[in-house]
Structure formats: structure tokens, C-alpha cells
């Protein structure tokens, strides 16, 4: 069982018999008062979003979901298609289920698909992905790296803050859990 101190974005718990994922999380506590754990929860089956606030002492049942290793094949009007390399079975996830993870999918990426029966309801990506920078303002020589950052767009259309020395054409590593720049892989 999870306790309140385990709550965080991405955690999957059972509520009323259905798996839910914490889409957003914040801890808050009035100075002299009780801790409150504010969650925005998404029902992984219905997609319904709602807010709930928990207090210390509550406990949560982990969502036991079947996880299968699959590979990202392609995207079409039906959604994002993944294939089990052993059985050749395909599962499609819609854009709403993927959320921002869709920006980190690259061809043939090996992921874990979370299943409810035969339906894909969630995904676990590898912790890091490498993507090429397709747009960023050029680095002016003489700028120190200290304290400078700028927005950049990568090939998937995702935008993020990167250090000033990153240039268009560089390949950068992004942490899929936070969406943040990690390091430059290839200049």
C-alpha cells in the first residue's frame, strides 16, 4: 500500500476498482496546519479528470496493471500504434492517453504498455530519449553558458529550455519523466 509520502506525478493507484494515474501533484501545508496532498487524477480507463486532496494517514492501493514490452511502430488517425515483437499483436493508444509522452516517442522505441484486459491504457517510456534540435536561436560567441538559457524545439515538435550553447542540428538528451534537457549528445 502506498502512503501519502509516496504520492507523486505518474503514480498509478486504484480508486473504486479502476486504475488512475496522478496527472498533477502538489504538496501544500498551511504553516501550523495539516499537510495536504493535492492530486489531479485521471481515470486510465475512461479518461475522466478530477481533483482530489488527501491527508496524512490515508493509504492507497497500487494499480496492478499488466505491463507488456512493445515497440512503437507509427502514428495514424486511430492513434499511436505499438507492437508486441513476440506475438506481433498490435495495441493502439490515443493521444489523450499519451499526453506529453507523445513528444518523446521515436520510431521503434521500446516501451512498456500498460494494459487493462486487452486495452492499452498507459505507457512507460525509457527514462531518456535523444532528439534533434530543429529550431533554436543561434549561440553568440562570447556569451558565457552561465545563467543563459533559451527555448528550443526538437524534431517531435516539443519545446523546452536549453543552455545557450545548444545549436540547431545538435542532438540532445531529454528526461522523459520531467521533460527537461539533460545533456547534449552530439554537436
Amino acid at each position: 500500500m502506498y502512503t501519502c509520502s509516496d504520492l507523486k506525478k505518474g503514480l498509478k493507484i486504484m480508486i473504486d476498482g479502476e486504475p488512475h494515474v496522478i496527472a498533477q501533484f502538489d504538496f501544500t501545508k498551511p504553516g501550523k496546519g495539516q499537510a495536504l496532498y493535492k492530486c489531479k487524477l485521471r481515470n486510465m480507463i475512461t479518461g475522466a479528470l478530477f481533483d482530489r486532496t488527501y491527508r496524512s494517514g490515508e493509504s492507497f492501493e497500487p494499480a496492478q496493471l499488466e505491463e507488456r514490452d512493445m515497440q512503437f511502430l507509427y502514428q495514424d488517425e486511430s492513434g499511436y500504434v505499438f507492437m508486441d515483437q513476440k506475438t506481433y499483436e498490435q495495441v493502439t493508444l490515443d493521444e489523450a492517453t499519451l499526453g506529453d509522452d507523445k513528444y518523446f516517442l521515436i520510431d521503434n522505441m521500446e516501451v512498456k504498455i500498460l494494459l487493462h484486459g486487452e486495452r492499452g491504457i498507459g505507457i512507460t517510456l525509457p527514462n531518456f530519449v535523444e532528439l534533434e534540435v530543429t529550431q533554436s536561436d543561434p549561440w553568440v560567441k562570447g556569451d558565457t553558458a552561465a545563467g543563459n538559457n533559451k527555448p528550443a524545439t526538437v524534431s517531435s515538435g516539443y519545446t523546452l529550455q536549453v543552455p545557450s550553447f545548444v545549436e540547431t542540428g545538435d542532438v540532445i538528451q531529454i528526461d522523459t519523466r520531467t521533460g527537461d534537457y539533460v545533456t547534449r549528445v552530439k554537436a
Partner: protein
Amino acid sequence: MIEPNWVLARKRRNLEQRARITQLIRAFFVDSGYLEVETPLLLPGNAPEVHIDAVPAGRGFLQTSPELCMKRLLAAGYPNIFQISHCWRQGERGSRHLPEFTMLEWYRAEGDYRDLMVECEQLLRRLCPTGEMNWQGQTIRLDSSWPRLTVAEAFARYASASLEDVLREKRFDELLALEVEPQLGQRQPVFLTDYPASLAALARLSPENPQVAERFELYIAGVELANAFSELTDPEEQAERFTADESLRRQLGKPPYPRPEKFLAELRNLPVAAGIALGFDRLLMLLCDAASIDAVVAFTPEDL
């Protein structure tokens, strides 16, 4: 190329602002006749607060607030004192919380909580000479006198239940945090005052109305910034409150702290006084237009 720690490097403007604000705060208090003091961070025990858990260290605990030592200084005859120090509180981590954070506390003898409200206004105006603060798209005016709102009024205005009901149902913290706080201090900072007596452990009860304590909290743009009160100076009443809090802690399964006996003994000498604790990192969040407390500290616990 070995990349520099870019997350650290890009905080530079905020860290420079932090240093500048620290100096301005010091200058304000020195100019106002306050003595800067330093009190130990490692203590045998803290005041037994029901919802604040101290970090154990060696055979004692790190301070959750410098309050007890600072009041002992007041009781020994130091009239106006301030301190900027680190405090530690277990299990507090969020976009506005760090388990180790910086607190600005100041205490004045022969004053009450109303004097502290005036000083808060003066201090913030000194830190923002333009007379306004811009935070996350909101403009907060600092110049004219800041409104005072009682806890009962605030609940009547913003909460889905009355103060009486939430106290009875033990939902005060929940409704305060979720419904009331986000509405407070949006256009101007606001002082939330007249807390129910049960919610003010170290505060003096109001002589006009003993149901409320002379306590206020300062809110700016929904951010809880400071907690202040006219000090309780009756050692028997203080000891009783400590006993009640110790008992509540026990019921919640929390570890006991050694009773601050020297503080209780010296409390008898405390003059009429008032004290305030202000979240220094939170103040910087507001001054640096930062959405997260992480942006105004050099290292978060996760960076270590």
C-alpha cells in the same frame, strides 16, 4: 565539452537578487533599531507543535524555528531582535516547501501584532520601491494600507462552509488551503487576523474577545508569507498548551520532544512583546517572479 551544471548556472539572476534582498532586509532592521542575533540550530527539543515534525540530529533536533531561543533573549532584556536562519521540517516538500528552508524572524518588546503589521508594510515597500510587485501575471500594489480580514470573514466570503462548521468538523486546514488562501492578497497583500483561540498555541488571547488570539498571517497572491502574534507571556497557560499539544502528538503516534523547561521558566520575564516568522524563500519567489521555490535556492535536496 564537459557541460557546466546548467540548472545551477541559470539561477544566477535569482541568486544575485537573493543576496541583494538579504542585505536590504538587514539594513531595514538595523535602521529600525533591531539587533541581529544567532541562536543554535541544534536543540534538545522544539516546541511540541502538532503538525510540525523536527529532523533528529545527534541526540537532539534541528530547529523548526528559532522562536524559543529568541524569546529567551527577549526575556533576558534584549528588546528588538531579528534573525535569518535555516529551519528544518520533516516531510514538507512541494512547489512552495522545502524540508530545509530559510526563515526571517523578528521580535519586539513593548509592541503587539498591530505593530508588526506596520513593519511588514514598511519592509515590503522598502524592498519594492516601485510600490508594486509582479508575480505570475498578477500585479500586487504595496503602497496604500493593506487590508485586514478576520478568519471568520474570510471563511464567510470564500469558503464553502462557515468557520464554526469547519472547526467542528476538523476541516479548517483543508478549506483554508484549498478555498480561502488562493483568494487572499491578489491585488494587495492582506493580513488574515483574529484566529480562533484553539489555533494559536503561542499567542496571547485578545483581551476584547478571548475566543480569538492576537495572531495574523500575511498573504500575498495566495502565498502564505508570514505568521505573527502578540506573545503569550503566562507560563502556566503556555505549559498547559504544551501539554495539550504533546498529547495530540502522542495520539497521532508522533515522537515526543523534551519539554523546553528553560524556556518555560524564563517566560515569566517576557515583556509584552510580539514576534513574526516570515518565509524568506517565499518572499524571494514573489520578488523574483518564480513559480517554484526551487528557483530561488542554490540547491534543492534532490540536487544534493
